[in-house]
Structures are given as C-alpha cells and as structure tokens.
C-alpha cells in the first residue's frame, strides 16, 4: 500500500545543527567561580546539592564539581564524566577527574546555537528510542491516547467520547484522534478539517497500525509532532522542543517538564508556555493529575511536580544569533546545496564564542540607545543602527557578529551587507605602504598642506582636514594619530594610487578599489566584515587569515565532511606591520582613539583607528588588543548624516566591547632590526628625556637618521654621548621591562 511504503521510505529531513565553539577549561584560564558557573548555566547545567546525573553541578567553596554530559565534538565523542574545577583568585588553578587525577585541559560541550532549517520552516532533532525517557511515551498515552497499545489505529470509543464531550461543552475538548491519526495528519495531510479528510486519515492510520509496531509508531510520533513556533521556524519533535523550551536534552527533563511538553502537544500556540504561562501551567497540572490517576506516577510525585514553576528558559535556545548564522549559511552555500544543509543531518561546528557575542550585543544595544538620546532631533524618528564583528586575529576565527541593534531580528544583516564608505579606516594601509617603501618612518616629516588636484573633466579635488585647518610639517606619527587628511593625501599621492590599492588587495579587499584620489580618504565601500578582514591582517602581524565562522562540518555518520583549518599567508613584512601597529597604539594614546582610554582597563595596550565618512554618514572604529580585533560601524540605514565622528559614535561601543572581553595587551615582539627611539610628537625631532615634554616613543629601523632637537644633548657628530654608567642603566632598565 502506498501509505505504508511512503511511511517506510520516509526519513525526516534533518536541518543542520549549528554549534558554538566549546569552552576550553585549563589551569591558568582567568575564569573565576562565578564565571564558571555562568558558563555551566548557559549550557543549562542544574545546580544541585548532590551530583546525581549528567547535567548537574555542585559548588563547594572554590571547588566546583560537574557531572559532564556525554558530548559530541567535531573530533571526539565523549562519555559522561565527572570533573572537579578548583578556582582561585587568578582563575582556574587546576582540574581533576573522578579519580582525583590531574586533567590538563578539557572542554565543555558546545552550545547549540541554532539550525539551518528549510524554507518550509520545519526544524527538528531526531531521537532514537534509547534517548527518550520512558516517562514521555507513558505520559503521551495517558493524555492523548489511552488505548494506544490495544487499538488498531483508530479508537471508536475515543471518538464517541469526544463527540459527547463536544456536544456538552460546545467546543472541542478532546480530539478523539489516536496518536497514529495525529501522526498521519502531520505526515501526509494538510490541516483542512473536512469529513473526507477525516475518513482518509482513519484509513491511513489503520494501514500504518497494521504494518508497524507500536514502538515504531510511538518513536515516529515523538520525532514528528509539531510543538512550537519561533518566527518562521517550526519546532518539530520532542528532542528539539526540549532544547527550545528548556535548553537541555530530553533525557534530563524532570516530571514537571515532561508533563509540560505533553500539555503543549494539544495546542502549541494556545498553550505556548512563554506567551500564555497561565494556560500552560493549568494544563500541565491537569496532565500531572491524569498521570497520577492512571498510576503512571504516584500522587505525591504529581503533587510535588505541580508545585514547580514552568521552568521554561527566557529565550529559546538557538536562532538567537541570526547574524552569525547568516554568515555560517553563506560560508556553506559555496560548498553545499541548500538541500544538504536543511535535510542531511549535518553538524556544523563554528567559532562563535557566546561570551564575546553577549558582550558585543550588550555594548551595541546600550551605546546606541545612549547615542540616540544625545542625537535625537525632531522629525527624525529613525534610530541609529550599528554592526559589530569580533575576531581572534591569529586564527581568523570570527567569534561574534551583531547585525543590528535588534540582535534577535533575522533580517537585514549590516555586518555582512551594509556596504559603507570606510573613511579614515583606509589610512593605516596608506602608511603601511609608506613604511614598506623604506622612504618613510614614524618620524618622517610630511606636509599637511592644502591639496588641489585637477581631475579629468576639468573638475578639482580639494580635500580638507576635519578641523578645516592645515598644520604644516608634521611627523608621520602625528599625521596618523590625528587622522590628518591633507598629510595623508600627500603621502598617498607620493606613493601612487596603484600601490595603495595593491596593499588593500593583499590584505583581502576584493575586488580591488577603484583608483581615484578620493580613495585616499576612504571613498572605498566596505562591509564591517570586510573591514574586519583588512584589520585582522594588521592585528596578526602582517599575516592574512581568511575570516572563518565554520571550523568543520560533520556528516550524519559522524565523519568530517569538510574542514576549514586555520590558514596564514604573509602579506606584509613583520617589520613594516610592527612599525604601523605602534603608530596605531599612539592613535589610542594621543589621537582620535583617546576617548576610549577611561573606558578600558588601565594598562591594556590596544591599537586602533577611527573612521568617519563625509558628512558624518558613517562612524567606524577598528582596533585590537593582543587577543581580539573588534570592528564597529554606526550609522543610519538610509545613509543620513549621524553627526557622529568615529570617535564619538563607534568608539565607545568598541571600548565597552574590548573592556568586556578582557583580553591581553597588544604585545607583538619587536622584529630584529627595529629599535625604539624618542622623538618630539609635534616636530618629529629626536629628543632625550628632559629636553622636551612632548616626547613619544616610536619604533624605527635601526639605521634611521633622525634630526636631533637642538640643545638636546647630542654631540656634534650626531651621536649621543653615552657613558658606561648610562649603558649600565640602560641594561638594567631592559631587565626590568
């Protein structure tokens, strides 16, 4: 018969499940006890007095014992096991297993962050019968289909009872449908309520019942049935419903939680525990009462469970990092057909770090709200928008993406799609080109003076400084720190537009920018993600690593199908990039990045650059510590002027994120052949301590000739006089630093 063949041949379409990066625990990790338990709670581990089953933890002073769940990683299947975490003032001090042996490193299971479901919206996690706690089928039978084990697919008694109840109550109280009929309806039929359909449903149910065991039918029901809606995503099956409502595996649910799911089956919208908590609670307790009456559980157990709150997580698990999932989807679209992603049961392991993602979301939401208050003008109801990309520069891992201030909104993804003028974000690449040429260094004097360029067609290009004033001769360090347009245009024209375009291309800009003079002031349009790719090379010492969201794709058989390993390609010399990065630290200490200083942990060395496009349409900040690169864009969707410079708009968002991430200082080793030297910030002349109060330490090639400031203690030959004592002091200082 067609129906049974169809059923037999039917395999569920399995949307790809997407996982965040697992948190690695090891001695020395600066994660305090509160943060450790926060991470456990994020994975819905339950705090208990006595560890009884996987998914629980216990806190005993500075010691945290965890019953780890069995977990599947990209490269390993791990059984449930016990872990003891010993914390101290500096973070994790040591880890031990159940036998008290030292564990050097172990990871928590990766957080499920969503799935790639097909356009018809069905999302599910399929469970084998072994993964289903026996309580669930018992509860389903008790509530939905008491004679499931004995009837033949339809239950005339139940239909009669339903009709009688209907007539009495004047509304549908009992469906009268067996689980098998419900299954048929979900599988094969539209939801139109017609008599013809009812008859077909009954016939098909009887056919299925004749051909399959009750266990098969029950398992099919558990994986098939609709249990909730999340935007355009339909939650099917109890495996996903458990994650969706409670954020944990079905096997870990207690009686009250199983009863809630059994209650929701009847009307996932009407009994939605998030939107209609009262109704859901009432029906759950009805289910519990029924379970007690039918002796599935004891009356005492039912009573105890009925006293519990619903226990539903505030946000559904998954689908709440839409901008990140968007990037994942686009990455995989190159290699996979849509159908493979939505149906083939793939597991996708990504680089997303929930902690970083939370920081980025929080900072953007909060700062945009503040900026809106600063800026709100009458007749301008539109609110500011923004986007954030955070990476780990050394690996090119994208650890957070925010696509707009409404972080849960799965719509326009500004991090990937807002293509905006990069403004002064382009300047570091001009100065990098200058440093590479060997003709410039941090102390080189450049002319900040009016530029008048004749363009084709007799037009003129007359760029201006932000201050509308020209500063005359200034050293490179100041020109970049203060983002002087005229000086930069002069340097760029000296080097030639093709060279600058080529540098941008080397760092990953595709297609290469159009070679027009305005390019020198950032007329180049980039997305925040593209800006992050460019700056990642600066943060990574001149090595380009393709930004990646996906680390590996695992097939339904557990084998790796495609890996995206770390890649590094040298695209600039370490010497040039080091000199530039030092200049970018001066942006933070003296230039346009300075307002970030009070928001950052004191002593954290960071490097960065602001960007403001013409008429304040785009406010950018891109910068990095030793641990992370963050790029922030702030602007209006309709490209209206914001009134904010990069320093006023994007910078505070950036600073809050960097402070929240709490990484280490930018601390690249100085390449051999470079040397630190002190110059005067205003004049670029070489100085010694005591002869100028405007000194800045810059890195320059060792053989660099820098004019010395008069009266600054250099002898006539130009060599500073050093004595043995001075050299000794120098040596001691080196030891200390």
């Amino acid at each position, binding site marked *: 018969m067609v129906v049974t063949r169809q059923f037999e041949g039917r395999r569920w379409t399995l949307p790809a499940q997407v996982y965040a990066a697992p948190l*690695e625990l090891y001695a020395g990790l600066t994660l305090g006890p509160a943060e450790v338990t926060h991470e456990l709670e994020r994975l819905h581990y339950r705090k208990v007095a006595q560890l009884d089953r996987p998914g629980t933890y216990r806190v005993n002073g500075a010691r945290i014992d965890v019953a780890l769940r069995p977990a599947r990683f990209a490269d390993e299947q791990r059984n449930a096991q016990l872990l003891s975490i010993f914390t101290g003032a500096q973070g994790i001090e040591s880890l031990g297993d159940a036998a008290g042996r030292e564990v050097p490193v172990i990871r928590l299971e990766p957080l499920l962050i969503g799935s790639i479901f097909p356009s018809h919206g069905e999302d599910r996690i399929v469970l084998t019968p072994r993964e289903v706690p026996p309580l669930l089928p018992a509860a389903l039978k008790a509530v939905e289909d008491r004679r499931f084990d004995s009837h033949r697919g339809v239950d005339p008694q139940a239909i009669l009872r339903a009709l009688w109840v209907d007539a009495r109550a004047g509304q549908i109280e009992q469906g009268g449908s067996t689980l098998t009929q419900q299954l048929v309806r979900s599988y094969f039929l539209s939801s139109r309520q017609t008599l013809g359909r009812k008859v077909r449903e009954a016939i098909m149910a009887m056919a299925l019942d004749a051909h399959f065991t009750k266990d098969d039918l029950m398992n099919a029901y558990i994986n098939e049935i609709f249990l909730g809606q999340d935007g355009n995503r339909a939650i099917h099956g109890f495996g996903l419903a458990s994650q969706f409502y409670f954020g944990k595996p079905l096997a870990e649910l207690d009686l009250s939680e199983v009863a809630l799911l059994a209650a929701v089956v009847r009307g996932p919208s009407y009994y939605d525990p998030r939107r209609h908590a009262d109704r859901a609670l009432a029906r759950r307790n009805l289910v519990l009462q029924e379970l007690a009456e039918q002796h599935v559980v004891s009356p005492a157990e039912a009573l105890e469970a009925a006293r519990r709150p619903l226990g539903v997580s505030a946000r559904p698990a998954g689908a709440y990092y839409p901008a990140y999932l968007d990037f994942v989807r686009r990455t995989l679209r190159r290699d996979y057909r849509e159908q493979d992603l939505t149906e083939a049961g793939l597991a996708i392991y990504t680089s997303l770090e929930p902690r970083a993602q939370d920081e980025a979301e929080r900072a953007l939401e909060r700062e945009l709200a503040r900026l809106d208050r600063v800026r709100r003008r009458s007749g301008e109801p539109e609110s500011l928008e923004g986007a954030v990309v955070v990476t780990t520069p050394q690996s090119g891992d994208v650890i957070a993406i925010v696509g707009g201030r409404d972080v849960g909104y799965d719509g326009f993804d500004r991090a990937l799609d807002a293509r905006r003028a990069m403004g002064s974000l382009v300047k570091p690449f001009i100065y990098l080109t200058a440093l590479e040429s060997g003709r410039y260094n941090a102390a080189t004097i450049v002319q900040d003076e009016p530029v008048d360029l004749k363009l084709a067609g007799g037009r003129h290009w007359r760029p201006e400084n932000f201050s509308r004033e020209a500063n005359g001769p200034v050293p490179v360090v100041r020109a970049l720190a203060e983002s002087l347009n005229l000086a930069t245009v002069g340097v760029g024209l000296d080097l030639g537009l093709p060279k600058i375009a080529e540098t941008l291309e080397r760092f990953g800009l595709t297609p290469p920018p159009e070679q027009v003079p305005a390019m020198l002031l950032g007329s180049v349009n980039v997305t925040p993600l593209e800006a992050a790719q460019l700056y990642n090379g600066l943060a990574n*010492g001149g090595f380009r690593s393709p930004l990646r969201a996906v680390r590996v794709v695992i097939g339904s058989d557990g084998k790796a199908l495609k890996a995206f390993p770390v890649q590094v390609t040298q695209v600039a010399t370490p010497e040039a990039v080091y000199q530039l990065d030092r200049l970018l630290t*001066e942006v933070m200490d003296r230039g346009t990045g300075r307002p970030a200083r009070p928001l950052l942990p004191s002593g954290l060395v960071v490097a960065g650059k602001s960007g403001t496009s013409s008429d304040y349409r785009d406010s950018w900040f891109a910068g990095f510590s030793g641990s992370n690169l963050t790029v922030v864009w702030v602007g209006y969707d309709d490209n209206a002027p914001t009134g904010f410079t990069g320093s006023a708009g994007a910078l505070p968002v950036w600073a809050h994120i960097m402070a929240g991430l709490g990484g280490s200082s930018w601390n690249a080793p*100085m390449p051999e052949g470079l040397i630190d030297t002190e110059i005067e910030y205003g004049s670029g002349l070489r100085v010694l301590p005591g002869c100028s109060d405007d000194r800045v330490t810059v890195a320059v090639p060792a053989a660099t000739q820098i004019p010395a400031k008069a009266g*600054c203690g250099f002898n006539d030959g130009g060599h500073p006089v050093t004595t043995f004592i001075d050299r000794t002091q120098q040596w001691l200082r080196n030891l200390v630093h």
Partner: protein
Amino acid sequence: MALAACAAPGSRPSGAPAGAAATGASASGASQTPAPVPPPPASPARQFHLGSAASALVAQAHTQAASGEWAAAGATLERALRIEPDNPLLWVELGRVQLGEGNAAQADGMGRKALALATGDPAAQASAWRLIADSLRARGRNAEALEAERRGGSPTPQ
C-alpha cells in the same frame, strides 16, 4: 587569559608604547645634524615553552599524526593555539602537520608566522627556519631551502 609562554625576564618586547626605555644619555653640546640611532642592544634571550594544557594537546596531536590522522592532529593543535596563540612552537607544530598533509604552501606560512613570533628565541627561530626549508624543498625550491636552512643555523639541541 592565555597562558603566556614562559619567556625569560626582559623578553617582553621593548615595544611598549608607554615606558619604553630611551637610548642614549644626556651630555652637553647641541646640533641639528642627523643623529644615527645607535645599534640596538642585543635582544635578551628568551625561550618559549608550552604550558601544561598545550603540552597535553601537542602530545595528543603527535599520536594522531603518527597514525596518519592529519586533520585530527591539526584540529587538536588548533585547540592548543586557542590557548597560546602567540607561541611559535605551536605554529611550527601546526606547520609540520600541514606538511604531512601535503600542504607545503600553508606550512611555509606557518613557519613564517612562527618566525615572526620567535624573536629573541634562537632555538624557536631555528625550528621555524627548518620548517620553512622543508616546505620549500617539498615544492622543489631547493636553493631557497638551503638558504633557509643556513639562516636557521645548526639545529639547537634541546
């Protein structure tokens, strides 16, 4: 949050924007003539080590590599790199795995990344150069390989 490589005191790159030591000293007499910057003091030696977490992962990667599971070994080393991203020893390890997989161009990139991080540690620099040399040789660029080997000097016994 990363475990720092156990570098010798003073090995912190002198590039701290604040507090970097000045070269030279005070004396009388002044001029505006160019002053060549004196040669840098020999950078103080340091030696990179692996922390215990990274060590354990490297050992695991070696086992995987020994049985030809290059991809798994690479994934394990990436875990170590997330813990110590600036440790040149790990980049050399990862480059060796790339070489084992037949990906000589990536091995070269990792060798150069290691080299950039290994400033001040002759032993780490030497193993980075050896990786670069092997990746060049794997691509038939024997003259360049010899030059890379020469720059790496003789292997430092550890």
